[in-house]
Every structure is written in C-alpha cells, then in structure tokens.
C-alpha cells in the first residue's frame, strides 16, 4: 500500500507533515516501530529536478524532417548552463503533433533525467544533441515522459484549467505542481492484513498523526455514517435486487445521467500515477481516487449497456456453474456457484468485488453511468480471487473486511465528485439494498489488563488519550476505559486488539524488558532428540558426514531406487516434478548424492541422514495424520574396490553404533518374504547381500532395518562406484531402549592368556552360529572354573575350490582371583577343538 504524504496532508485538518523533518533514518525508524514494515520510502519529487514550465514562443518546421519542429522556448531564465539565443530563448526540437506557438509546456532541461526513466537501470539523462542537423536542448515532455499518466500522444499542454495564473508561467519548477514533490512510503500489505482502514490514505494519515501525538480528525464527509445524498434530478430508473445478503451485506448504487467521459485533470492523473494506478478516464479515475482515500472500492457501469426495457435492474446473485463472463481486459472466465456476480437481471456484468465485465465497461462514448459502492464478504472474495487468479486492487481491499458503513459514505462522495467534474450531470435516487444501519459497540477495557499484557503502568487517562489520537473514542469509567471503536475499525473486537493499539502508539520499545518469573522444574527431554544427537556425534566421530536432504523427491528418483511412487504422498502444487513426492525412505536421497561428491574429488566417504519419511495411507491411530517414520539412513562409497564385500563396512558402522547405544541386536539373512516386508526401505538393496537388523524388544527380536549392498540396477541408476553399501533403520524402538552408559567391567588384576583356535566348517555355515556354538562349548568346558573368556574373530579363510572354510578366533582367558597357567588353558582349548 503506497501512501503519499502530500495526499495524506491534504485530507488532514491538522499539520501532520512535521514528521518529514526527521532525518530519513529516523523517519524510517519511527514508521517502522509504530506503524509497520515498509518496502521503501520514495522521494517522488527527486525525479523532477531540472524540469520547468516553458512557453513555446516560436515554432518552425525542421528543414530536414517532416514531423519535427524547431521550437524556441521561454523558461523565464530559470535554467542555468543552457545555450540561449540573443532573446534568451532556448532551442528545442520537438516532434509532438500538438506543439504550437503560445502554449505552456513542461521542458526537461539538458542534464536532467526523463522522469519516466528515473527508476530504470539506466535512466535517460538528456544532453544537448543534434536532431537531423539541428541543435536541440533538452526536450518538451509528454505526460508519459513526465510520469503522470500513460498518455504519449503529444506533449503536455498546461492551461488555466489546470493551474492558477500565479503558477502558470515560464520558469515554474514542475515538481512544485500537482503535489509532485512528494514522499511516498510503500508499506508492506501484509502489515495491514487486519487493517481495512490502512488500505486508504485516511487510515494511514490517521496513524501518521497518532504516532506524532496529534489528534487526527477524519474529513467531515467521511465521518458521517448517514450522508445526505443530493436530490435526485435524473429520471434514469434503477432497481437493485440482492438475493445473497449473507455474502453481499451492503449494496448501494446510483445512476448519473449526461456525463462526458474525458481525461481527468492533471492533478488527479498525477496523484493516481505516483501511487501505481494507471489513469483511465475521469469516471474510472474518480472511483480509484476514492478507493485510495478510503479503502472502499467502487465500480462504474455504462448504464445504457446494462439497460433492459425502460430501466436497469441490477440483480446480485451467485453465478451458475459454467456460466461465462468476459472481464475487463478481454479474458473470458468460467464461473461457478461460489462466485458472486452482478447481473443486469439476466447476464453477469461484473464479478462482484473482484473485477468488472467487458460488456458494461465505461468507454469514451458512455453517456450515463451506474456507480456501485458495495460490501462483499472477505472469504467469498478470496475464494473467487484465488480460483480465477485475479488479484485486483479491489480484492486486496475487500479481503481485509472493509466496513459496511462506508459504502454509502463513499458513494455520496463519488456523486459529489462527478458533479464537480461534470456540472451538467444529474444523479438519480440512491438505491441501498440493505437498510440495516451500523451500530456502535462499546467495550470496557480494564486498566489492569492493559498493564498486565504490556508490562506497563498506564493511567486510565493515558490510555484514553492514546486511543483518542486515532479516533478510537474512549473515556475513563471507574477503573476501566470505555472504548468505542469507529466504524472503520472492523478489526477491533477483543480487548487484546485494543491493547495492541495502545502499545503501538505508546511505543513498544519503551517497555521495560523483564524476564518472566518461573518456578524451577527440570526440563523433560525427548528420547528421540537425544538419540539423534548421540548418533550424530558417534557417526561423525567414525568419519561419516551428516547431510540433510529434501523430503521432496521426484517420481523418477523413487523409480530409480526401485520404489513405488504410488506409495508416496504427492505435492499438488510442487515447484517442479523434481520435488513432487514425499520420500519413502532416506537411502535413495543419499545414493543420489554419491556421484556428485565422487566427481568433485571425494574418493571415499560415508553419508548419513537423520530424518523422516512417510508412506501414503499409513496413519497414526489417534490423530489419523500420516505416520512419520523416524529414520537413520547411511551410505558408504569408495571409488576403489574394497577388501572383501563392502557390506561388511556398512555393517561394521551399524554394529559399532548399536553397541555404543547399548542396543541388543542381531543380523539375519533375509528370506524373500522378510526382504519384501521391509519395502520400500529394502527396495534399493540386494537381498543376497543384505542382512535384516533385528533389535531386541523385551524378550523378542524385531526386524527394524536393513544393511547391505545395492542391487545392480541401483548401482547403474545412481552411477555408484566400485564399492558401496549402506543401511537404513527405524529409530523409534531404538529411542525407547538405548542408553549411553558404558558397560563397565571391573579390571582384573591377574594377567590373561591368549590362545588361538581355528575351526573348519562347511563354507555355507553361518559365522554367527559357529561363534555361538563355540561360545557355548567354552562355557560348557569351563564349567564352574570362574574362568572368563573373550572371543575375537581374526580371519575367515577358504581355499578357492574348497567347500569348507576355516574361521580363526583369538581367545583371551582370565580369572578374577588367580594367574592362569598356559597348560591349563590349552587343555580346555584342545577339548573344545576335539569336540568340534
């Protein structure tokens, strides 16, 4: 929302412009801290340096160009450093068809910038040039070049209609005219989502006054909720039938007869243009001007285009499904029954509150008009606007809940303005669809509550003084302040709403910062957060790198990872197909990051991620929201062939992590069924070279993850290197069972004895079974001897064509109370060997 300080001052009874004496930094600070964030403060006048009014004294045809004229202009001697002839006149070549002797124009002197290009990357700065061999100093400017409208049909010609005589003379600085020497603040719209009034200049001017502790007074015509309409002089007939008062609570309209559509006066065009609104014609400009003053959008229809029979009957209703409307600008849209349409009794002539229809547009031939001032339900307007992708100035305002009471007031002002511009026009009776009048509501605000929330100690008097600055009518009453929100503050409903106003106008930064007083209680810790912290610390210590990848992946990636995209939640409004699906597990994302890292020179690395994944239709029991699986994904990659299967590296990481977390677990060969039950996690893995991870829960082992190598397709699809493997597991069970306490064993004072044992088993025998059998045997043979032993695998050896393998273990023996001797131990080892 752009706010013009000049326009704000114009509608204010008091001087509210002193704030502009502040340095630009202080002004910014003041606006920011007491009104709200803005994008920029624009010095609009700066673009008019070096532009003067000048009179064309003499005009001659250019000898070498049909369309050019050589003008001698009089700038009243205002410009310095410019070439003049003996009469003090300046030569300017001009191609405008309307250039003629005796007219007053705007002249941009050499060295100055063409205002319309002021904000361009490379502004057009004029210099003395030759046009077809004739010297030209600066230029005579069109409205477009002067940034006051889009009109580029000729140069701007100023007459007594536009300016009083005192100003209408050569040498007058152009920026001193039409309020162009202005400061414009572009407030962020979202600051005012709850402030319908701040989408009009009256609303912001009121705040500008308030923060300077000036009691603002709205213009009289705006304050009167019961405006007096001029007596009907037109006989044009208008009927309004509003069948949807729930979403169009107020609809008022008037006919104006015998109007003449023409360009608006310069001041109006310039005012609209600097606020970012394109001037169209006097009628449309009046509606826009009143909108930027009050926040109330208006719309004008061509009366004759919507007339049927003897008069016009406006009917407001919901659109029919697949009904069509061509809106202003020519686009045809297809409506549905949630859209509000204004009709001529039969066909839609406007999309209510959003945009007018092309079929009822006011054009240069329009003789009679209907002006509409209505109120629309903000939610209905937003739905329609979103669905059709139409974001107009009217939508911006109606979606902030404009006050109903304002419709009549602004309509009355519109009639006044049209009559002022076109004194021969005649207005009809005003039709108001819903006569329900606005009623003021009072709210008793306890002083105590104000001070409790703000942390201040304001008196009742202070509170009501502050509120009265911005016309929130207040007076003291016992220990409360009785507050009456004005009609334009539809946002003030709760005590908290009013307390916010008090705090803001008082200055939030004057509030004393004091820490809350709280009772001390230990902070609860979420085990899943603690677990993730531990995993992060441990895996990074083991040389792995934590990464974060998106939840969103492409269908392609899922397919490349062997997963079924149908299982994934899909984003309806994804930025691109690359980000369309919620990931099903973490490993595919990690696989996707391997190749690029290898290419950038990382030869060997491990990536892990702690994150969530989702599977469509798997819901939480109580909330019915998607289950969020807490996962750890890990991949290892090496561009060289690893020593033995890479599986064992991934397994080593996982095993080490789980022992650190004190999680009892085992690795099992995955049969087809179990492997598939782990999909989509297991999908990228190769079943023959992967193990299931089982975690002990109570007395049972439960399958909680997979560790292994990736299947051939995956290796190809992700361009994986010679060696790669990984794992993925579910963290919830682990978070419920982990502990970071070390497993301390008391130190044994007596030396231990080391012995090796090699066991030959069929090559298909599982190591885990061999080891546990061996362990059992030692236990059995050691019996009650109190000798402790620790088994450590050293090697697994197999001759190429043998069907057997040899597993070698190193065994450490010790006794808590004595020194063992070797023969004693050897005997046991022998026994075990023999029993095998």
């Amino acid at each position, binding site marked *: 929302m752009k706010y013009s300080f000049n326009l704000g001052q114009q509608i204010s009874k008091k001087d509210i412009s002193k704030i502009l004496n502040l340095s630009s930094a202080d002004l910014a600070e003041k606006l920011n801290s007491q009104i709200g964030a803005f994008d920029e403060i624009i010095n609009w006048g700066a673009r008019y340096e070096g532009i003067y009014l000048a009179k064309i004294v003499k005009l001659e045809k250019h000898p070498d160009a049909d369309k050019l004229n050589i003008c001698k202009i009089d700038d009243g001697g205002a410009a310095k450093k410019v070439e003049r002839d003996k009469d003090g006149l300046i030569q300017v070549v001009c191609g405008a068809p309307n250039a003629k002797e005796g007219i007053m124009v705007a002249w941009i002197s050499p060295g100055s910038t063409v205002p319309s290009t002021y904000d361009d990357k490379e502004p057009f700065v004029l210099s003395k040039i030759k046009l077809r061999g004739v010297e030209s100093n600066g230029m005579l400017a069109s409205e477009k070049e002067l940034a006051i409208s889009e009109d580029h049909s000729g140069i701007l010609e100023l007459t007594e209609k536009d300016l009083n005589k005192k100003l209408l003379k050569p040498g007058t600085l152009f920026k001193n005219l039409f309020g162009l020497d202005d400061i414009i603040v572009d407030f962020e719209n979202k600051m005012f989502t709850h402030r319908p009034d701040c989408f009009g200049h009256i609303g912001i001017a009121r705040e500008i006054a308030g923060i300077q502790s000036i009691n603002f007074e709205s213009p009289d015509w705006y304050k009167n909720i019961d405006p007096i309409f001029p007596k009907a002089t037109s006989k044009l007939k208008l009927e309004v039938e509003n069948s949807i008062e729930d979403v169009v609570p107020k609809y008022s309209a008037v006919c104006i007869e015998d109007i003449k559509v023409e360009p608006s006066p310069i001041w109006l065009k310039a005012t609209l243009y600097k606020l970012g609104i394109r001037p169209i014609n006097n009628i449309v400009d009046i509606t826009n001007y009143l909108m930027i003053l009050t926040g109330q959008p208006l719309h004008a229809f061509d009366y004759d285009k919507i007339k049927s029979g003897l008069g016009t009957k406006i009917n407001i209703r919901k659109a029919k499904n697949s009904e069509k409307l061509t809106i202003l600008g020519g686009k045809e849209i297809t409506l549905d029954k949630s859209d509000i349409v204004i009709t001529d009794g039969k066909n839609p002539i406007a999309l209510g509150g959003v945009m007018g229809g092309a079929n009822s547009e006011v054009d240069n031939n329009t003789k009679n008009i209907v002006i509409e001032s209505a109120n629309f339900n903000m939610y209905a307007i937003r739905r329609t606007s979103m669905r059709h992708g139409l974001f107009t100035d009217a939508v911006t305002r109606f979606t902030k809940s404009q006050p109903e009471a304002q419709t009549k007031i602004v309509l009355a002002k519109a009639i006044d303005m049209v009559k002022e511009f076109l004194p021969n026009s005649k207005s009809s009776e005003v039709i108001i669809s819903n006569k329900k009048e606005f009623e003021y509501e009072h709210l008793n605000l306890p002083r105590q509550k104000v001070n*409790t929330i703000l942390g201040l100690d304001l008196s009742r008097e202070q509170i009501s003084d502050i509120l009265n600055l911005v016309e929130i009518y207040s007076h003291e009453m016992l220990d409360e302040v009785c507050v009456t929100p004005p009609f334009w503050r539809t946002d003030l409903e709760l005590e908290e709403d009013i307390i916010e106003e008090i705090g803001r106008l008082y200055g939030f930064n004057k509030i004393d910062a*004091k820490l809350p007083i709280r009772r001390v209680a230990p902070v609860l810790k979420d085990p899943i957060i603690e677990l993730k912290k531990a995993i992060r610390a441990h895996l990074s210590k083991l040389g792995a790198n934590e990464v*974060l990848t998106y939840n969103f992946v492409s269908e392609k990636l899922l397919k490349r990872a062997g997963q079924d995209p149908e299982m994934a939640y899909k984003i309806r409004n994804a930025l691109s197909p690359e980000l369309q699906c919620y990931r099903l597990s973490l490993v595919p994302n990690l696989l996707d990051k391997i190749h690029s890292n290898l290419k950038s020179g990382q030869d060997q*690395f491990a990536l892990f991620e702690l994150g969530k994944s989702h599977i469509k239709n798997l819901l939480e029991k109580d909330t019915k929201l*998607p289950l969020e699986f807490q996962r750890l994904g890990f991949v290892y990659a090496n561009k060289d062939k690893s*020593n033995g299967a890479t599986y*064992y*590296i991934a397994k080593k990481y996982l095993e080490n992590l789980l022992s650190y977390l004190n999680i009892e677990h085992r690795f099992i060969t995955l049969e087809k069924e179990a492997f598939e039950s782990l999909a989509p996690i297991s999908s990228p893995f190769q079943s023959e*070279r992967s193990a299931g991870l089982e975690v002990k829960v109570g007395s049972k082992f439960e399958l909680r993850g997979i560790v292994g190598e990736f299947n051939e397709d995956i290796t190809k699809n992700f361009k994986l290197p010679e060696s790669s493997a990984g794992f993925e597991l579910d963290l919830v069970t682990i978070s419920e069972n982990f502990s970071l306490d070390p497993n301390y064993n008391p130190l044994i004072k007596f030396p231990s004895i080391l012995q090796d044992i090699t066991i030959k088993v069929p090559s298909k025998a599982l*190591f885990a079974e061999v080891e546990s059998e061996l362990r059992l045997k030692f236990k059995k043979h050691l019996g009650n001897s109190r000798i402790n032993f620790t088994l450590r695998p050293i090697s697994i050896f197999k001759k190429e064509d043998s069907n057997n393998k040899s597993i070698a273990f190193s065994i450490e023996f010790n006794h808590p109370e004595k020194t063992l001797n070797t023969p004693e131990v050897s005997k046991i080892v022998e026994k075990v060997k023999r029993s095998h």
Partner: protein
Amino acid sequence: MDYKKEIEKVRELLNEEFIELDDKSRILKSPKLKALYALLPKVAAEHKKDLGIAINKLKDELEAKVKEESKKDSSSKLKLIDVTAPFDINAKLPEFLESEDGSIHPISQEIEKVSEIFNSIGFEIFESRNIDDAWHMFTSLNFPEDHPARDDYDTFVTEEELVAPAHTSTMQNRILSLRKDNLKAGLPIAAAVPDRVYRNEDVDARHEHTFYQVEGIYVDKDVNVGNLIATLKTFLSAYYGKEVETRINPFYFPFTEPSFEFALSCPFCDKKGCHICSQSGWIELLGCGMIHPNVIEMAGIDSKQYSGFAFGCGIERLIMMKYGIEDVRLFHSAKLKFLKQF
C-alpha cells in the same frame, strides 16, 4: 555290472555336490563324472552305445543346470555372503574412515546449540512434523478458513489436502494441549521447536523451499510484552556470547496480538554498521508476539487467566551471518566440500 544303476548313483552324488559347490561350473570337472567315462572301455560292446548316450545325457543335464545357475548368477552377479560374519572370507577387517573426515551438519549443530540454551532457561524441546493438516497449520492458529493471511504462507499441499508446514507454529496447539496441566501445577508451559519447514518459493541464493525455524512458546499467568523481549534478549545474548540490544516493530500475524518484528543490535559490528547488517547496525531477526487469546482457548486453556508469548526465528540466517555463508542452497546440497568445513 548294471551301468544304469551306476549312472543313477552318480547322478545323485553329483546333484548333492552341485548344491554344495560355490562355483557351479566345477561340477562338469567332477572326478565322479570323469569316472563314468572311464567305465566306457570296460563295458561290453553291445552296451557301449547306450552307456555313452546315458553319460552324455547326464552331462547335458549338468550343463543345463550350470547354465541356469549362471543365468541366476548374472541377474545377481554377486554371490551370497554370510551376513552374520564381521568380515568377508579371505579379507581383512574393514576399517572406519578417518575420524577427522567426519562432520555434523551445521544446521544440526546450530539446533543443538540453540536447544541447549533454551533448555538452560527451562524450555522443553519438541520436534515438528513434516506433514500436517491445515487445522494445525492455520485454523488452530486463528487463521479462519479462507482467511487472506493464509496467502502469506506459500504452503505446499498434498493431493490429500495435507500440508507441508510452513512454520513451526504448527506445533503450538499440540504443545499447549499436551502441557496444559503444567499450568494447574503452577508451572509455565515453556517449549522450543527447532525443526524443518517448507515454503513454496522459487529457490535462489537467499531462498529455499526447505529450511529451519525455531519456535518458542511460553504461557503462564501474567505474562507480558516485557517478558517476551527479555526472554529473547537473554537467549540472543547467550547465543552470541555478548550483551545485545533489542528493538521491536509492530507487525501482523493472526496468531499473536500484538505482533512484532524483532531486531537485535548487530553482534558482528556492535552497531557500528557492517556488511552483515547492511550498515544499519540492526538485524531484523524474527517474528514474535503475545499469543492470541483464540489460540490459547483452542488448546483448552482459559485465556482470561493465562497469557503467553511466542516467537519464530529462521536458523539458516543465524548460521549464514555467523560464518559468512554465501548461498542458502548449500545446506541441502550434501556437498562434502561444504560440510567438512563444520
């Protein structure tokens, strides 16, 4: 000699051997098969032909088996391994990577740091969700259905009308409901939620569709704006390890009233003006405010008795300012050259 019986016997033995073999093709070189050929010269002439055919038939059978097996093998070229072993056959023990190559993601580090500070001032840490419903994301936070304020949150929506939360405030209602008994026990509700959020935004050096926020909420009796400012100031001073000044500007959020934009004095130049604060001496850091009574009521807490504050702060920005990181996209790039620096 019944050569037919002999062949049957060898066929059985060979089948057993075949199952045991790692390299299935070796079956064709089995001594048992060779022994059959050795029988040929010994049998009577009239049987020679039949025996020859029988041996060849057996050999063909075996060849077919080997071929089939090799087909199976090439579909999974790699052999079955003993997944319970700690290392491979004839291989050395695998080794971990160098410890110094390991790294923790800078965002995780920052979240841990921030969480620790909040823990130390009594805030419990919660995770947020990656998929949520519009009720938690909007309605529970006083954004009515079709409210225009929803437009300011460019939210990703799934086909099921679920949302990728655009702010960690999506957890406010849950936490307030979960911990409302604290209030009866005379304790405040104090929680921080550092987690991932999503915005449907075009990505560039300063914008990501996936980023991190930390949400804070505090509810108790008589909580005021001054408490909010002091809490944030305490947090930021601890975070930067120095006293910072703070400043608040009014703002609009539907779930707080009043709402603020919170700035701190630039900790990198101590307000002298530097490139990080764009020479202004101040850094606009976060949004905050007093929790809207509707939000408190929606969690089943009496807003007449209790009030509170909430705030939300972007995490990446904190890190980027601190280390001079030039591009927000690096965080989710998984580039080791980036990650290993932390």
